[in-house]
Structure formats: C-alpha cells, structure tokens
C-alpha cells in the first residue's frame, strides 16, 4: 500500500504552519502523529496534495497548566502526557483512561490533539474532553477562537474545524479537590476502540456521566442524585431511553447492557474516589 504522491512541508513554526494552511486550505492535511492519517492516506481514503508536518515545531510540544486549565499543545504525544509526573494530580480521569488508549507503539507517536481532531466517537480522549467540558482552541492565520467540546464534535469523524484552522491546543479543566472520577470500558481486544466506554465526574450530589461508542458523538448526561443508588437508577433509565447505535461490532442491546454494567462500575468508582491530594 502506498499513499498517492503529495508534497511534504516540514514546518518549524506556528506561523509557517498557519500560512500554509491559509494558502492550501482543503488541499492540505496537517500531519502530527499520523497514527490515523497515514492509514487513511495508505488506503487512499484521502489523497491531499499537501501535507503540513508539524512534528518539528518546538512550541507545539508543551504541556501547561494555566489557571484552572490543562493546556495540551498539538505536538504533545499521548505517551508524553501519559508519563507526565503531574498528570494524576492535575486530571486523574486522563490518568485512568490512558491504559485503554491504543497500544504503546501508537501512543509513542500519536498526539492528544490528533485524537481530538479525528473525533472518533469511541475514542477515550474525545470522551474525556466531552465529559470534563473541555475546550478546543482553533487558530487560523488571522484569528484564534475557543470552542466547547459539545460544539466542536458535530458528528462521527466530523468537527467544527474550518479548512484553514489548526487545533492549536486542547484544554482539559484541572481536577477540583472535591470531585470524584470513575471510568470503565469494554473493547474486544486490549487497546482497541471501545464498544462502550463510560466516564463519570461527581461533585457533591451532582453527577456527570459520559458515554463513548454509543452514538456519533460522545453523549453526556447530568443528574442531581443524593446517593449512588439514585444515580445508578438514573443511569439504568437513561440506558433504556436514549438512542443507541447498532453496527456489526455490537447490537444496540449489547451496548445498552454495557452502559448499565460499566456505568454502575464507574459511578461506584467515582463515589469511592479518594481525592487527588
């Protein structure tokens, strides 16, 4: 298998990357880790004339904490964030999810922003951004805008990014001391995309429950429940009521069953969460 010919632009600065995107727009694709894009090119699902390789842009490789946000640059590899010593303290939900994100050799190369850009509805990082109510920063040559996850993911593999824009950062809210987190997933093989994944963020009586793999975008529901059993009751009702995808990998019945069992596990984990300090 071989991609169609393209011109590779190896840029060294943000400015250079944005100028090229402005110039080529839809004829160009941004190449970061390439763990999704390269197979797409190899199978010729896409054959852009230009690839803008941002791997050499040093300013993109930063993990920063700014006020109450964890800001991840577009050059940050998944393994870099996974192995960052402050990660558990800063956002434990991401720490809990990383063992489920693909395989070592893929995480060594794949980027966090790349996963968000790809917007696979079964992706753990996409689910994390949605349930934590994170934001995506999009930069073009002329402007920078910030958009909430709920508005950024508009369909399966579809986002609100314009063709001249680059994801210049994703922002995950950092953990609050009184928040509890839970995460559970089922996939057919370790490291594969989730059939269903459930992430829970709990603060006092407020529960935010996110489901990955059940629809074209992650689905986040919220409820005020005084006890874990009340939250689980709500979860069971939700699992029966909302629309759930059916495809060759799993029936909607199996997915509903997984929403209940994994959801229950994640809720209990969030309840028992010991805190970050």
């Amino acid at each position, binding site marked *: *298998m*071989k*991609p*169609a*010919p*393209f*011109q*590779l632009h*190896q840029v060294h600065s943000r400015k250079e990357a944005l100028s090229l995107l402005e110039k080529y727009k839809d004829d160009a694709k941004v190449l970061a880790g*390439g*763990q999704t894009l*390269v*197979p797409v*090119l*190899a*199978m010729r699902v896409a054959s852009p004339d230009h*690839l803008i*390789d941002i*791997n050499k842009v040093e300013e993109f490789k930063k993990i920063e904490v700014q006020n109450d946000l964890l800001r991840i640059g577009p050059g940050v590899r998944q*393994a870099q964030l996974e192995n960052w010593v402050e990660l558990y303290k800063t956002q434990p939900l991401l720490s809990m999810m990383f*063992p489920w994100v*693909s*395989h*070592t*050799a*893929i995480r*060594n*190369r794949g980027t966090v922003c790349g996963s968000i850009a790809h917007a696979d509805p079964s992706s753990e990082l996409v689910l994390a951004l949605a349930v934590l109510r994170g934001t995506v920063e999009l930069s073009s040559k002329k402007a920078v805008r910030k958009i909430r996850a709920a508005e950024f993911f508009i369909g399966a593999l579809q986002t609100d990014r314009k063709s001249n824009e680059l994801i210049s950062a994703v922002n995950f809210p950092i953990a609050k001391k009184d928040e509890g987190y839970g995460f559970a997933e089922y996939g057919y*093989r*370790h*490291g594969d995309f989730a059939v269903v994944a459930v992430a829970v963020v709990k603060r006092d009586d407020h529960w935010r429950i996110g489901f990955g793999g059940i629809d074209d975008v992650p689905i986040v529901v919220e409820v005020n429940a005084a006890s874990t059993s009340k939250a689980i009751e709500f979860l069971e009702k939700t699992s029966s009521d909302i629309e759930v995808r059916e495809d060759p990998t799993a029936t909607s019945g199996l997915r509903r069953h997984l929403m209940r069992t994994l959801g229950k596990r994640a809720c209990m984990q969030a309840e028992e969460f010991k805190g970050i300090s």
Partner: protein
Amino acid sequence: MKNQFVTITLNGQKREASCESRTTLLDFIRHYLGATGTHAGCEHGACGACTIELNGEIIRSCLMFACQADGACIKTVEGISSQDNLSDLQAAFKKHHALQCGFCTPGFLMSAEYLLNKNPSPTELEVREGLSGNLCRCTGYVGIVEAVLEVGKMRLNSKRDSNA
C-alpha cells in the same frame, strides 16, 4: 514530486538514500537500505510486524514517512543481537516455541525488548498488555509471554549476581 535525501543511523551505521516523500519509513528500511528483518504486514498500523525503535521509543514504521526520520537513530531486529549469535530473548523464543511461521517475530522482539527495558520485572498481565499491539496468528501467545517472562527473570538474576 522531487526525491529527498534521507540519512539515518541504522543499528549504529550511518546510511542514506533518496526517496519520495510518500515512502514510508518501513519501505525505506526494507527496499532502499535492504534491511529486510523488519516485516511489512498490514501496512496500516494494525499488526505490529513493522515495529522498530526510533530514538529510543518503539513505533510502527509503516505509520511514518522516511523523510520525517531524517537524522534519527533507528534500531531494528538486526540490531538486537551481536553478529550471528541469538540474543537471550531470541533464544528464549526458540526454546518456548514462541514462533511458528516467524512473520510477526521481529515486531514482537522489538516490543518485548522495549517492555523489558522500561519494566525489568513485568507480571504476566503487564507482558500481555505490553505486547497487545502485536498480532501473532500461529502461537496463541502463550509461548511468547513465557519467553518474555523468563528473560525478565534471567536478566534480573544475572544483574543481582554481578552486583553480589
């Protein structure tokens, strides 16, 4: 499209060749440099047969372009043993029947070496997780996992002996 010169250090030796921008690192190593130990399996990142070490980190060589690796230090399966001798891990693979057709083996060896470097005494679960990105259709993985666990123990013991 214009060809580009790519220079890499392959198993300690400086090598260079010119290739198209669309040439994957895998094809570059196999076809341009003639090092065919690294195998081309699915060529879209699913099987792990093409796993190599790039600047100390394992990656899939089918999922990056040769031009991106210009200047990099690369280790392939040819680099894990000295001359004609089997490395301890290769010998353990032989002993435990951790291969039949051998197609996936170069990838497994690279992933297993990386795993043992990062975690010298892994549990069985950690070995299975560490090797989850590599597919083998012959062995059922049992022999592979046994071989890696045994080498982990052997290396720790010899380290202890040399420290004593």
